[in-house]
């Protein structure tokens, strides 16, 4: 149906081209809409999917179109359980069928670019999908320029797997299975900001868990560009109790920041001048906003997208919103829960604007569990509210799991982690797969 409208629209554009009328016609956003306003969402991860689902609920008269090049979405949450061999990739592979069932127009096509001034997505197959609102949720790209010797051609031998799809996660797990009994796994960790701040340390934990069972003399070394990290005291307590002597962490003051990668030799050259050899090398590269946002001029010089925190609109771009890992939403971390939360706020703001209602303000939450082991969960949570033009953590709330908690609490939090995954996926994609 939309294809027919768009085809007629392109024919109209061709007829108008050269008449001088095209410039006047181009901004008309809803030529193809048969009912209500149209909202176009570029990107079908947690942010884009959550926004689409929430808009169907909050603005049922609007036509919601979600575009993503991939039919399947392998989640960042629980990707480390695939690396550690606890779950198959299928258990964390979601799709957009639940969105379609909720009435979202789902288009699986490569997006060549987005045009903020026309609130339109240009597809590689020549289609152009424009709306009254454009929501851009492009996730992150790796900033390969920031790490000498490392690039997309290196991913087979030295995976990033952040999360990078099912094949990348399986490849990293396969390398762990194939490594020597007394080998060394090295992870390089970037400076902030990056997707999922505690993720590298959960990954080191679940790799250590795999090694403890299958390669008892093998070890894990983290080379970090930072001096401190998310849930640090909890991870250290967990490593000491579950993997004594197996996990080593070196930080910025140890000169551990990765400067260059020798892919063929699986070696890391650090800022401090060390050359560190690995049997399995996992490079988590520095990151920036996804290409769609940067190419459209939505990002700042550092590569991240500034937003209006009341409705996640891109300043200076009427009707354009940006969500998820691509944006500057400090102090909210780049997490799936943050992306889902921002999508709720954005969808509500769009629905209120479409209905001519005044914007309302409600709190935002981030909740994030990490697994130190399958039966050992730890968490961090914050409540935020909007304070002027900034997001601010509510002082009386938030924080990490108790440092002194016993095994029953750790086990309970591991169960909550699995339950949160299922509920977050259901509240974002409408339905989905679940890990054990």
């Amino acid at each position: 149906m939309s294809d027919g409208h768009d085809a007629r629209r392109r024919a109209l554009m061709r007829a108008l081209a050269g008449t001088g009328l095209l410039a006047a016609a181009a901004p008309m956003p809803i030529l193809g809409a048969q009912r209500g306003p149209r909202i176009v969402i570029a990107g079908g991860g947690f942010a884009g999917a959550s926004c689409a689902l929430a808009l169907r609920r909050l603005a049922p008269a609007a036509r919601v179109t979600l575009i993503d090049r991939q039919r399947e979405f392998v989640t960042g949450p629980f990707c480390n359980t695939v690396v550690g061999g606890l779950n198959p990739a299928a258990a964390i592979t979601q799709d957009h069928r639940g969105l379609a069932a909720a009435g979202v127009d789902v288009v699986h096509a490569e997006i060549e670019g987005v045009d903020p001034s026309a609130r339109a997505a240009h597809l590689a197959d020549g289609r152009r999908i424009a709306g009254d609102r454009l929501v851009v949720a492009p996730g992150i790209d790796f900033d390969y320029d920031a790490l000498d010797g490392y690039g997309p051609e290196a991913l087979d031998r030295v995976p990033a797997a952040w999360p990078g799809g099912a094949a990348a996660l399986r490849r990293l797990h396969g390398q762990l299975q194939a490594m020597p009994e007394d080998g060394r796994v090295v992870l390089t960790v970037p400076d902030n900001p990056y997707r999922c701040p505690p993720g590298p340390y959960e990954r080191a934990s679940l790799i250590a868990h795999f090694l403890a069972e299958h390669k008892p003399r093998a070890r894990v070394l983290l080379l970090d560009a930072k001096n401190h990290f998310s849930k640090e005291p909890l991870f250290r307590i967990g490593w000491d109790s579950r993997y004594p002597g197996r996990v080593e962490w070196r930080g910025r003051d140890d000169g551990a920041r990765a400067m260059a990668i020798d892919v063929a030799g699986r070696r890391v050259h650090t800022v401090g001048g060390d050359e560190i050899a690995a049997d399995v090398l996992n490079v988590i590269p520095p990151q920036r906003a996804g290409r769609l946002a940067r190419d459209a001029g939505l990002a700042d010089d550092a590569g991240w997208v500034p937003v209006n925190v009341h409705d996640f609109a891109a300043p200076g771009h009427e009707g354009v919103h940006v969500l998820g890992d691509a944006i500057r939403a400090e102090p909210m971390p780049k997490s799936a829960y943050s992306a889902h939360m921002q999508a709720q706020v954005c969808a509500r703001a769009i629905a209120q604007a479409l209905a001519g209602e005044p914007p309302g303000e409600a709190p935002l939450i981030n909740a994030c569990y990490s697994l130190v082991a399958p039966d050992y969960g730890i968490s961090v949570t914050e409540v935020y509210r909007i304070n002027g033009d900034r997001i601010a953590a509510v002082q009386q709330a938030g924080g990490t799991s108790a440092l002194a908690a016993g095994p029953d609490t750790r086990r309970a939090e591991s169960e909550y982690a699995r339950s949160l995954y299922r509920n977050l996926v259901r509240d974002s994609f409408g339905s989905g797969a679940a890990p054990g």
Partner: protein
Amino acid sequence: MQSRFRLPIVLIALAVGPAQAQALAGTTDGADLAAACTGCHGPGGHSAGAVPDIAGMPVAEFERRMAAFRDGEGTIMNRLAPAYDAAATAALARYFADRPEPASP
């Protein structure tokens, strides 16, 4: 005992300024507030797995549990509940009490 420490804390909060926000106030739209809860508790409060299912929970039970969380019970809700004042808690309690029970199999 504790009151001796309140004034300095308030002063610190004022000095820190916009980086830290006061507890929530004024927002009493249950649906708007609930959007922060359903990522963990599931759509409409219908949870799959260990996180408590709060859909259809009676108002009094919801408020009793939130009070217990504010007193320090729980593993994560003890860190979330202090952000919610009585009005916000009541709005959330009404919202989730009104969610239908899941269809019986």
